[in-house]
């Protein structure tokens, strides 16, 4: 089951590659490099954790990868295709088909019920997961008709995961998905995300402040002041539940 422990490198397929990616803010004397010539790659199905202090450029990296922001220079290859130079509508298609985003503040549509938030995906991809099934997957089958404001933070985040997964994307990009939750609920969310990687083969990338999470990751990317300070592959990642959280 756990393909990463096998040595059959032929089954390892690269899905993401950053080549000299730079994201610069400002002009003239006030230039700030949110990302400065970043290089790394990620394989299909990996559970990746990006670690770094506040302001390091983690969100920037994730946003570039998700096609929500444009790189100043460099190439971002997804499945061998450079998304850095794509026009707006192509980026939208890319996001719809390949990216599932999970935010710190859930970002559910307040006017739609839990089920409807997930059912939105029907408008985006040809064969989304059934909304009920997705809700069931995150254990919220009983809350289908509740509006976000009627759900707890953890439940909202589970709905947002269900929504991201329902699109059946190749990767799940999670920016501090547990940032607004207590540790117990956060743990449950992380377990769920790890399951998405292990059981459904999704590439899951999580931005976190929590160094302990490194033990659970297949790959850990450390970043500081817009530069990669270390990339570590973890041959024997632990289940999230066993990590000291």
């Amino acid at each position, binding site marked *: 089951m756990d393909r990463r422990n096998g040595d059959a490198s032929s089954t390892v397929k690269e899905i993401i590659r950053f080549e000299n990616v730079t994201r610069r803010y400002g002009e003239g004397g006030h230039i700030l490099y949110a990302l400065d010539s970043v290089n790394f790659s990620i394989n299909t199905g990996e559970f990746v954790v990006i670690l770094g202090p506040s302001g390091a450029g983690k969100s920037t990296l994730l946003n570039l990868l998700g096609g929500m922001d444009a790189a100043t220079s460099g190439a971002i290859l997804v499945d061998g295709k450079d998304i850095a130079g794509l026009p707006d509508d192509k980026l*939208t*298609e890319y996001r719809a088909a390949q990216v599932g985003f999970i935010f710190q*503040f859930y970002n559910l549509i307040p006017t*739609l019920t839990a089920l409807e938030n997930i059912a939105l*995906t029907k408008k985006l*991809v040809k064969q989304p997961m059934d909304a009920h099934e997705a809700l069931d997957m995150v254990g919220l089958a009983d809350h289908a008709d509740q509006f976000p404001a009627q759900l707890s933070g953890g439940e909202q985040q589970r709905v947002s995961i269900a929504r991201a997964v329902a699109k059946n994307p190749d990767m799940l990009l999670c920016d501090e998905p547990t940032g607004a939750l207590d540790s117990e609920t956060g743990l449950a969310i992380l377990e769920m995300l790890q399951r998405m990687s292990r059981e459904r083969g999704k590439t899951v990338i999580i931005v976190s402040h929590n160094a302990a999470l490194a033990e659970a990751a297949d790959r850990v990317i450390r970043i500081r002041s817009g530069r990669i300070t270390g990339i570590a592959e973890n041959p024997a990642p632990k289940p999230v539940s066993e990590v000291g959280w």
Partner: protein
Amino acid sequence: MLTLKMIRDMARNKMQFVSIFLMAFIALFIYAGVGGDWRGLKHNSDSFYRETNLADVWLYNDGFTDAAALAIESLEGVSSVERRLELTVTADNSGSSTLTLYFVEKGAISKPYLMEGEPFDPEDKDGVWLDKRFADANGLTPGDTIGASLSGYSMSKTIRGLIYSPEHVYEAGGDAMTPDFAMYGHAYLSRKAFPLPFLFRYSAMLIETESAVGADFEERVADALRGADSSYTVYLEQANHPSVSIFENETQQHKMIGDLFPVVFLAIALLTILTTMTRIVASQRTQIGVLKALGFTKSAITRHYTAYGFFLALAGAALGAALGPLALPSLFFPSLSSFYTLPEWETAWSVAYAWAAAGVAVMCAAVTWLAVHRLLAGAPAETMRPKPPSAFRHNPLERTKLWRRLGFNAQWNIRDAPRNPVRSAMAVVGVFGCAALVVCALSMNDSMLWMRVWQYETINRYAAKLAISANASTAEIDGAVSEVNGEAVMEASVEIRANGVRKSGALLVTDGVTLIQPTDVNMKPSAFPDGAASITLKMAQSLEVRQGDTVQWRVYGEDEWLELTIGGIHREPVSQGLTMPRAYFESLGLEYRPTAILTPEVPPALPDGVDFATLTSDSAADWDDLTEAMRLTIYLLIIAAAILSIVVLYNLGLMSFTEMERGLATLKVLGFKSGALRGLLLTQNLWFSAVGFALGVPGGLWLTRTIVALSGETFDFPVSIRPLTLLAALMFTFGLSLSVNMMFSRKTRRINMVESLKAME
């Protein structure tokens, strides 16, 4: 420090602030502008009447003696009396113009108002003071001489001065509705200038009263005259004088517009300001909490926010109040002054403008104050936290099968609209206001066009109407009729009374006429009743009579009242009164004498016995001139409606956009295309527009009816709107609504997903 914050905030919320400023500006611009217009008309005419001492009552008969004048002068409440001889003559200038001559006793009541030349001298035997507009149209100046023939005696006088008469603000001469200054004029002369002293008699007596004329005045006048062995045939009070009443009608129409539209504008402006300010304050919720936590007092914070609304609204309103009265009257007055004669056309100022401007600013401040006050009531910690999202309830519609079929767009918007009921209501009201104004403007235009067709194409089937000379012989008339292949009719002015109401109107006596096509109450071609009198619908309504009822009537100037039974009701747009066949007229013992000949084609030359011709095509063109002021109002309304709705819709669009931005950004991250997002925004907007428009159509028609009710008793003004026009109004309203929306479509493309979703707002 807070001032700096205010300036930064204003820069950030530019559009919303600009819109508050604009709304206050437009509302006051219209209010004070139309106010300057109708107040100006009233003020200019009132001061003209005052300066020239316009008569309060006119009496006519064939000669008032000194004793009669004395009897009236000694009546209680009468301050002075003056007599004059009124004569209509044909002037011997290039054309054969008609001049009304006033040979006056003193020239103290209804004084000529000197525009050029020497002041009026009641002793001058050789001078004449001529109507300036007549003089201008005929190229006459002081020093020139002008002659006229008077009962076969030709006289010639030197023009001493050019004047305006308060009795000729509206020059009612001739058949046409627009004055013809070259053909009709008037002149003042001393009674001593009358060339045949032995024939002189005072045909009119002008009375100046100390205060308003009481209801019993006519009776007292009659009594006094009886005591002096005299009587009158016509008694006319100032309000009923044709020139006075027509101008008063015009003023009233303008006042009506001035009362009605600004209210619509003010209401919409206030609503917009209200929603915008509430919205701005709400968006500053956390900031207000922070300011409070920093230790600013409640009143400092309240003052800070209230100042935004107050100064912006005040600036806009004050500018509007200052510019409106300067700009709008100068738009209306040129066309009015080609129609009416007043020595001055000036806008009028009123403290009401300042009050209204202050009122708008205060209302705006009050709304802001309320909004901030509510927020400040909470503890700082609570205020600092963003407002918790309101809980959603499922609406009953969701239980139905239909809900599933509605599609995402509809579902989203059904849920979203009630989230902010004020905004939704505003959107509807904004579109309603716009649609009502546009429908009102277009239906007014349609009605005027319809009346033109109705009168000058359907009813008037003649190409020209020839006025028969007063002294034409029967042989001449018969000759003229056959020469132009025409039909003779008799026209006269009549008084009609029934149910205690007395009205003046027009009489038409027909003699087998085919060139007039009567129309029934539905404005469809019909026929006059055989051997009976027919009354116009509007007249019947004023007199509260129906077919089969009896009314009393008499030709103007006759003493005896006659009775007739209404044999039919027909409808006419521009003149109200009675129509009857010659045989019926004669059976009442009245003498039939044709006054006009209708001709199927414009005759190449005027036959003998005819004074002049009025072409139907000219009358139709006159109608266009007459409705010119109305048309200006219409353009103004449409422009105002457009600005109004652009501001309201833009503002609302901005609000709903900011409110939905986070949701839209989320959808965009999920992979929704910009077009789909635009569709979401558009759907809601279109719904509101549809509701607003549906309400706006009856609203606009109501507005038109209210205005039209003031168009005077001679006009039968059916309010109509053609389906095509309705479509145009629909397209205009939706077009605006859509194009304002397009401004936001660009914004959906530019939504910055990273920034929109960065923090919980």
